């Protein structure tokens, strides 16, 4: 049984008395110990998916529909109190920007201890020791000194590690990381990703990784979900998706990655722009930019079809491979 199963998730907001759905038709499953990557451009609904799973969306009159099943429980129907006991100890979340994810008025060590003590009943001293050990495992040099410092005294890479430690400290079963390396230098990015992979594998934590870097996905993920304009367009095992993408958007995305040895000036780009929430086209949201689009795509919204095992694709023409 998958540890996390998301079924036909949608999020609806009411803006100026009009309903908008920045997220629709998202379905995925992840098994224990798996690393799932979610890619998509800015505004495609990646972060919103993570927030919806964690119950962190602040809705004013909107609604979240579908189901998010974690170990047999539907998280969407749980009360705020019940969610509080799940957050951190069962499912932890690492927000997008490490620079602002730490409370500026507390020492970083105390912030990790706070997360730990909230979930596990242990003494202050013991918690402190555990946190320092964990910081050491995350290769934070001079962990004891860093424990005593305030967020503004640390570099970006260190802050990111502290935030990872906060996510890991209570031994969650799933860790959702929202673009954990975007704010970092490329050299540090690789280190952090490796750390992530190591720590989650050692603790048998399932990692839900949100990124817009296909390279990261290729390196560490088992499964990948591709998002476009608030829809999930393709989902499947990493090997399958990368070697034979079914959705034209995935295909175009993969072609956009520059390769060493490529001719200069031959960088591919997808023509057109990502539509914003209020200008979503009818039918398939990708059709204005798609080379395969026909009248069917303009009129009918493609369903997210389950094909061969875990793979899913939302395209009317996924079978023809003409381009």
């Amino acid at each position: 049984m998958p540890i996390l199963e998301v079924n036909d998730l949608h999020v609806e907001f009411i803006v100026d008395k009009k309903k908008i759905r920045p997220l629709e038709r998202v379905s995925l499953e992840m098994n224990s110990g798996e690393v799932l990557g979610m890619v998509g451009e800015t505004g495609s609904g990646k972060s919103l998916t993570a927030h919806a799973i964690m119950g962190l969306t602040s809705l004013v009159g909107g609604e979240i529909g579908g189901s998010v099943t974690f170990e047999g429980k539907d998280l969407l129907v749980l009360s705020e109190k019940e969610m509080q006991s799940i957050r951190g100890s069962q499912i932890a979340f690492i927000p997008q920007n490490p620079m602002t994810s730490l409370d500026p008025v507390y020492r970083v060590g105390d912030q990790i201890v706070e997360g730990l003590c909230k979930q596990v009943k242990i003494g202050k001293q013991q918690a402190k020791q555990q946190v320092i050990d964990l910081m050491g495992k995350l290769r934070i040099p001079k962990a004891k000194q860093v424990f005593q410092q305030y967020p503004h005294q640390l570099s970006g890479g260190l802050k990111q590690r502290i935030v990872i430690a906060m996510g890991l400290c209570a031994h969650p079963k799933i860790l959702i990381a929202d673009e954990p390396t975007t704010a970092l230098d490329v050299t540090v990015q690789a280190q952090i990703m490796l750390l992530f992979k190591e720590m989650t594998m050692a603790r048998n934590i399932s990692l839900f990784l949100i990124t817009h870097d296909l390279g990261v996905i290729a390196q560490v993920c088992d499964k990948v979900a591709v998002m476009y304009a608030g829809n999930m367009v393709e989902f499947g095992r990493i090997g399958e998706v990368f070697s034979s993408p079914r959705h034209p958007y995935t295909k175009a995305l993969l072609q956009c990655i520059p390769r060493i040895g490529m001719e200069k000036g031959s960088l591919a780009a997808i023509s057109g722009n990502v539509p914003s929430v209020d200008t979503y086209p009818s039918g398939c949201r990708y059709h204005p930019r798609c080379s395969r689009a026909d009248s069917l795509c303009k009129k009918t919204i493609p369903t997210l079809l389950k094909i061969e095992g875990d793979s899913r694709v939302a395209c009317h023409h996924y079978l023809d491979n003409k381009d």
Partner: protein
Amino acid sequence: MVENNVNVYKRKPPWVVILKRFLANKMGVVGTVLIVCLVIVALFAPLLEPYSYKEQNIEISNEPPSLSHIMGTDDFGRDLLSRTIRGARISFVVGVLSVLISVVIGVVIGSIAGFYGGMIDLVLTTIADLTWSMPAILIALLLVAIIGAGLESVVIAIGLSYWAQYARLVRGQILSLKSAVFIEATKSLGASDFVILFKHLLPNSLSPVIVAATIGIGNAIVLEATLGFLGMGAQPPTPSWGAMMSNGTAYLFISPWMIIFPGLAMMITVLGFNLFGDALIDIMDVKNKESI
């Protein structure tokens, strides 16, 4: 190597940095000296007074400043220096206590309004706006009229007149901090509303409140003097600066020193708190200064 891209600060102790930053603001230092003087005078009033503040001697009434009575005497022949010194005590106590009351009420109401929003916010903000739209002196007068004149009622009245400004300040801070990423991070670790509000939101929103409170002490001292001037403050023979000045108006052309000296004392005190408050703004604004 991991060690190389990480800098563990060799840092100066925080107080050294704070002191350095504070000394850079000359006016702030002046303010601090004034406040320290006031505190010393208020604390050791009985030791500093050359005469008793309530001893009357009609034979020497309305005497101009001289060597034996540096600030002169009032209409009952009481030594004005002694009374001004004793008045510092009243002003300081009233100023600090009443601001404390305002801050506690304001912080609680403001944080609840900002954190919960919706109807609660609307109701609390409306009450705060209503209080704020009335002149503080009117509210204070009304309250003193209800609970009766005297020092305690003055403290309570001033406290209840000024809370709205702190409530608004805290509410604004909480509103903007509520959506900060670190609050989301705390929430995602399973923290309850209580922990988020009191452990994370409040400490982060206090620095403007501390600044406002410092300047507020000055305001409270003026309001106390106003109430004293109107006869609603501390009752005679307790020497409140306001009451002393009020008393002096009757002798404005005979013995102007009765108004001048308590007035000067009050001006210097309020100036001290304002300068100190302005300097605090610079210290607390961590964003554009060398960090602590």
